[in-house]
């Protein structure tokens, strides 16, 4: 267990900058998720922490020790790769014991550790199988077992669930979270899936184009996104972000809708944000024309237009209207997000 500090970390591939000075502080035992669209530099940052990529500038410290030039094997970390990277020619047992074998651990210790990890992960019966004889979820567990046996200071996960089907992904998500809570090991987890990030993290770091857009607790990011990128990225379905300007005593959106504003609104609003679940059906609401109605059972997602402004709503009520019919909706004014012309929260 250890803290991880990333201070002004930079990375260039040739003359192309990939990371433009990133700062992250990760507390002891914390579960941090790096999330962002593909190509945002999150995997590169993880690989820099692992020691698989050189650091072009700045500093990375694990447990207070600067590791910029320390080789991966001496950083006391364990990593789970996207495609699991199990050694195909070794059995599950050999895969899990490989790091200890390299460290010349005694045979009894190796066997004991492997058994312990296998028990935690439910792999007891599979120890003599080869990776090709395992299902996706089992491979995933072996990859985690390989990380557990080493008792590392930091776990690193690089999109570990993206090769699994949706159901298994949900299951493994909670397994990983539970395991991390049990072992209380500092964990850095990379994903492009914001739901994974929201459900697993103590702290989410949202990255975009080599920069950190915002870092904080999942619900803090959901409640108070710092800019339009985070606002649009966190939350599903995504927040409605409507460009426009203040006029006629409200917010005149592109497309013609006039949306109500909360009291004491600054004058320089350029983007009006409202989450689909914060639109409510109301008799005194604004008239909206239904475009698509998608019932999911627990809620109904509705694509609609107010004048020509497209909006998405998610309602607890069951809406049976057909496309072209109208409903009346209004935003919950206490949950409206307003952003300036630079995209920052006002």
């Amino acid at each position, binding site marked *: 267990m250890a803290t991880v500090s990333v201070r002004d970390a930079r990375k260039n591939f040739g003359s192309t900058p990939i990371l433009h000075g990133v700062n992250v502080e990760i507390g002891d035992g914390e579960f941090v998720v790096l999330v962002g669209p593909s190509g945002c530099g999150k995997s590169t940052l993880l690989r820099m922490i*692992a*020691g*698989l990529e050189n650091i072009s500038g700045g500093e990375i410290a694990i447990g207070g020790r600067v590791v910029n030039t320390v*080789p*991966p*094997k001496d950083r006391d*970390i*364990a*990593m789970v*790769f*996207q*495609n*699991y*990277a*199990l*050694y*195909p*020619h070794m059995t599950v047992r050999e895969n899990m014991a*490989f*790091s200890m074998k*390299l*460290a010349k651990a005694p045979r009894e210790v190796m066997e004991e550790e492997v058994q312990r990890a296998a028990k935690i992960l439910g792999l007891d019966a599979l120890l003599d199988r080869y*990776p*090709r004889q395992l299902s996706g979820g089992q*491979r995933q567990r072996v990859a985690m077992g*390989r990380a557990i046996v*080493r008792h590392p200071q930091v776990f690193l996960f690089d999109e570990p669930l993206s090769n699994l089907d949706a159901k298994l992904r949900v299951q493994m998500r909670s397994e990983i979270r539970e395991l991390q809570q049990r072992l209380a090991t500092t964990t850095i987890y990379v994903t492009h899936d914001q739901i994974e990030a929201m459900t697993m993290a103590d702290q989410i770091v949202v990255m975009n184009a080599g920069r950190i857009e915002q870092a904080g607790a999942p619900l803090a990011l959901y409640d108070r996104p710092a800019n339009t990128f985070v606002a649009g990225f966190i939350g599903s379905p995504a927040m409605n972000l409507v460009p426009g300007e203040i006029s006629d005593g409200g917010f005149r959106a592109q497309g013609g809708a006039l949306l109500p504003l909360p009291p004491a609104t600054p004058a320089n609003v350029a983007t009006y944000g409202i989450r689909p679940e914060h639109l409510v059906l109301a008799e005194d609401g604004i008239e909206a024309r239904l475009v698509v109605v998608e019932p999911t059972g627990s809620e109904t997602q509705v694509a609609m237009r107010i004048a020509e402004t497209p909006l998405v709503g998610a309602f607890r009520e069951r809406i049976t209207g057909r496309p072209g019919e109208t409903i009346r909706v209004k935003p919950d004014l206490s949950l409206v997000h307003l952003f300036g012309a630079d995209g920052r929260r006002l």
Partner: protein
Amino acid sequence: MSDVAASPGNTNTASAAPEQMAWDSKTRRVVLLYVPLACFLFILLFPFYWMTVTAFKPNAELYNFAEHNPLWISSPTLEHVYHLLFNTAYPKWLWTTMLVAVASTFLSLLASTLAAYAIQRLRFRGSQYVGLAIYLAYLVPPSILFIPLATMVVQLGLFDTPFALILTYPTFLIPFCTWLLIGYFKSIPYELEECALIDGATRLQILRQITLPLAVPGLISAGIFAFTLSWNEFIYALAFIQSSESKTVPVAILTELVTGDVYQWGALMAGSLLGSLPVAIFYSFFVDYYVSSLTGAVKE
């Protein structure tokens, strides 16, 4: 082809389905698959058949096609094989060829494994150019290269020894094997090595415990190629070896079994037959690896 071309389906779009079925029809398979395959096999295998038949024919049959069927043996004999094994230095030639082929294959595999791994996996300045340079070395024809090599062989005092061949064959084997192995190493996921790096392995441990075990099919096919090339090599063996008993099989049967303008066809063919057996046996053992290395990558 003809049956489909003649069918009315070509002009009538409504009968597209029957036309499609005709594509898979038996006639079509025979015409497009089995007949060309049979021709190919015949052309490929006939020389071997001729070689085998000739090796076991008595001289009387061999030179008299008027009274004997040239494609068949009436009274098979082992006299040519006997002559070859006990009246010539054939066993010695075979041994030399084997020694040279095995040693030069081993040397080449060793060097090209390290070279291919370095070029493919280590990020060093100019690795691409090194790869290109090795490839260019392969393009220099042996018929030009043997002249400077001859000077070196003589100056090193290796002339007329097996070492002359063991050390010169790698000049064309290493580039070849390196390129084959670069391709194979490329197919092994790099994450496996990164994972091993984190697990605490050194580069050499990774090579020995992760990459090489996974590259066995590639190593075997490189080995087979190298072995076959050195087994069949002619120019260097002809140029660098003089004494009769140090010759390799391809050179020896041609220089020792043709006396003046007299071709000892029986012995020549028996020599060729016995000479091609080791390679054939070699291939048959490793054919699975060989095919998998040329067709597929590492599966997890």
